[in-house]
């Protein structure tokens, strides 16, 4: 039995400082799933057409050849769907967490990748947002670039980028003013 538990008030993840207070987190824009979706639809259409052509119209008479064709098409169908499922999982394993101290970019895949990059808000020198093209501007996503002294963190496909940009700037300013007041 799998239990889904989470702390109700805060986010917990590997690499998070106990002192950090989380403001928000997000995943990449849903447009990242568009091409995997188109690919699975195209492969499904191909399998359907092949089934219709080889088994329906031409009606392969040889039973063993027909069964080999059917198994080949079934495997192609399954492979396309499992690849789509893998893309969906990968989408959900790419998470950006913004806390009061740092921005964490956690990028994992099912088997090969396990990256965790962070950048301190106090170390930030510049924050850029860029939206190129009609699709990015219509759907409101783009690339957020966070620059510190020796580190550049690029967050591609940031959804509602204008809002995220403003919120990160706001958090940075609040923390800066709080630190100024705390300095004796």
């Amino acid at each position, binding site marked *: 039995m799998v239990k*889904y538990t989470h702390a109700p008030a*805060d986010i917990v*993840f590997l690499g998070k400082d106990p002192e950090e207070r989380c403001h928000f987190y997000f995943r990449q824009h849903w447009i990242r799933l568009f091409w995997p979706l188109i690919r699975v639809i195209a492969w499904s259409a191909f399998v359907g057409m092949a089934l219709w052509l080889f088994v329906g119209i031409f009606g392969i008479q040889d039973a063993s050849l027909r069964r080999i064709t*059917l198994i080949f098409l079934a495997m192609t169908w*399954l492979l396309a769907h499992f690849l789509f*499922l893998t893309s969906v999982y990968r989408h959900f394993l790419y*998470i950006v967490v913004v806390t009061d101290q740092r921005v964490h970019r956690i990028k994992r895949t*099912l088997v090969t990748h*396990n990256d965790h990059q962070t950048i301190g808000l106090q170390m930030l020198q510049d924050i850029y947002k860029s939206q190129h093209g009609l699709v990015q501007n219509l759907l409101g996503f783009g690339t957020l670039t966070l620059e510190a002294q020796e580190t550049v963190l690029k967050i591609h496909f940031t959804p*509602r980028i204008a809002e995220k940009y403003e919120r990160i700037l706001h958090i940075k300013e609040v923390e800066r003013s709080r630190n100024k007041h705390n300095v004796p």
Partner: protein
Amino acid sequence: MITTLICIGILILVGEVCLWRLFYTKIVDMHFPPSLDCSSIRFFSIRRMHIAVIVHAVLLLISTLFPLWLLW
């Protein structure tokens, strides 16, 4: 025919379960309250994803095994 269909059915279930277990082991150490989620897709919590994966597995079983059974 039945043996082939059962083998393919088991293959689908094993694939779905293995992918889900891999995903779950990767995401289990990150707990996310939905109130802080600012993603473009906010519907899928882990519980809802699990349900969606079960539905996907059932649909994949039906859409693979039924045509095979018809055309074998």
